[in-house]
């Protein structure tokens, strides 16, 4: 017997597969020239958004990054509307005004991706202040990369969250690359979690490619925050499998390095091996989930492509209330 319910295991696998398939599909259509702008893929980091969001409800908030599709999906956003937004269609969450870098779904507490690296910290801190002032039990999670931890916004936000004892979970996705620059060459510490001590909050490190570890660490942090215990910094160690953006020539690393990382450390493969080994799930169950997700993503592309573009006259809409 396992301590994880079948429901939770299914959520883990379903969500990670959904994100992976979504991202592979976006990549394909971007390369086909069907998607405008820039896209940043979350492939290889699925266990983080999945493990974190498994602890959240709709009334909890998340602030996301430019690499935000995975967070959006894990928080429960509808994939049809997410895909439509990325395709620039009127049926997208933002009616085609945001695109990949500015995707948001307020109906599930996803307060937005952010085109500015480190732009989300203080918004999450402010949302947590709102939660506290309204005497709610919710929490506010901010996802960010190792690169963003060098922004002043991180330091001001971490201080304020701790000084005011706000229910914020800082989730650092340390994927080893700040755009094209390796972590070690531009960051004063090996572990971003070490920075937590400077702000009087707990800092923990987890294997970001192990959904169970991410889930457990977040569970603790969320419980603590809900009980008024204040913020936590969780550093999830991972590796960015794709380039910074689709089309990145990746001159800063070798193909072999990436291949090796993916082969030995793919979070989805690791999950499959673990649940099969422990006999928590069967191959048949896994295959069925994957098949359903493939169908879902296929349909999301059809939905997006069959949706109209916004009318040019909509340019002035939604600027002011």
């Amino acid at each position, binding site marked *: 017997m396992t301590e994880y319910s079948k429901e939770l295991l299914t959520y883990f696998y379903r969500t990670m597969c959904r994100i992976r398939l979504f991202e592979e599909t976006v990549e394909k259509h971007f390369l086909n020239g069907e998607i405008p702008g820039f896209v940043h893929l979350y492939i290889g980091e699925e266990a983080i958004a999945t493990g974190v969001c498994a602890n959240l409800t709709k009334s909890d*908030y998340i*602030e996301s990054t430019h690499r935000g599709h995975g967070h959006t999906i894990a928080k429960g956003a509808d994939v049809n509307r997410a895909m439509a937004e990325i395709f620039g269609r009127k049926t*997208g*969450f*933002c*009616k*085609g*005004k*945001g695109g990949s870098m*500015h995707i*948001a*779904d*307020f*109906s599930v507490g996803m*307060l*937005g991706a*952010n*085109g*500015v690296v480190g*732009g989300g*910290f*203080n*918004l*999450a*801190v*402010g*949302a*947590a*202040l*709102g*939660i506290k*002032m*309204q005497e709610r039990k919710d929490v*506010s999670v901010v996802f960010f990369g190792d690169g963003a931890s060098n922004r*002043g*916004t991180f330091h*001001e*936000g971490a*201080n*304020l969250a701790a*000084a005011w004892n706000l229910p914020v979970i800082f989730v650092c996705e340390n994927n080893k690359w700040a755009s094209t620059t390796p972590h070690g060459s531009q960051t004063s510490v090996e572990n971003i979690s070490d920075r937590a001590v400077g702000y009087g909050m707990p800092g923990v490190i987890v294997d970001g490619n192990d959904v169970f570890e991410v889930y457990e660490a977040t569970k603790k942090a969320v419980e603590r925050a809900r009980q008024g215990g204040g913020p936590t910094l969780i550093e999830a160690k991972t590796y960015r499998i794709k380039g910074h953006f689709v089309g990145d020539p990746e001159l800063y690393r070798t193909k072999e390095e990436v291949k090796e990382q993916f082969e030995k450390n793919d979070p989805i493969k690791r999950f499959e091996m673990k649940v099969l080994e422990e006999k928590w799930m069967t191959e048949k169950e896994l295959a069925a989930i994957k098949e359903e997700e493939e169908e879902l993503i296929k349909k999301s592309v059809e939905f997006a492509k069959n949706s109209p573009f916004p009318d040019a006259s909509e340019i002035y*809409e*939604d*600027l*002011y*209330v």
Partner: protein
Amino acid sequence: MREITFSQATLEAMSEEMRRDKSIFVMGEDIARQGGIFGQFKGLPQEFGFDRVRDTPISETAIMGAGVGAALAGMRPVVDMHFADFMGVCMDEIFNQMAKIRYMFGGQCRLPVVVRAPDGLTSGGAAQHSQSIESWFMHIPGIKVVIPSNPADAKGLLKAAIRDDNPVIYFENKILYREKGPVPEGEYIVPIGKANVAKEGKDVTIISYSIMMKKAFEAAEILAKDGIDVEVIDLRTIVPYDRETILESVKKTHRLVIVHEAVKQGGVGAEIAAFVAEEAIDYLDAPILRFGAPFTPVPFSPVLENAYRVKTDDIVNGIRKMF
């Protein structure tokens, strides 16, 4: 009507609104224990508590960003910037986050944030504590900008700003805090986007706002002795500015002068002049005149600071030459 200072008028607006709506709170540096460095928040925490009137760390980025985030969570924050000059510290939070969030997310949310920004020349405040930067925000879609010139408008525009569901920047001139004037008690709202024809006239229009309204009135008084009848318009709102009132006045007087304390180049006057040139150039009997500060930072020494100021005589002499 009873008379109170500009500063008391802002305080009255804050108290009345905070009594009305529990989701309104205010945060900034030195506002609670100190009552604001200009005394404009005195007594507020005693009535509403230190939870709703918050002293913050010296972290403009966090203050501004947290204001935006709190609004996303359903609050109606008022954030104080200490000095308008410090808005540069958190410009990303203002122009990339606050101004754009509603639009780029397709109207999914409202952002009822008020940013209070004490601006303008003081004695010797120099380059980083004296600026008038309202024109920056005229170039950023997604925010509104108001700028009162007297105690009544200070109250009415602040109440309107707090009730608005959009981000509003509220510029309050530091010298004006001490100004006394009649202010209606209780419910008094000055609608955003509506200019005030402060003095009617038929020969020339002066458009101004904030502390420069004084110079506009002084010039009008002097010119009246020459037989020149000046119409004085207090713009009150920079974004969205009242195009209708401006055009109506210019079509009547056929002469336009714009006066502000901010740097003339690229200032609010430039936008208004261009707008009038586009829409009503055929009505003009003289070239448009603009008065503003020279294209330099604000200097410190009293002699230099005085040279930086727009003077009534310059406005008067400029207008005389229009006839």
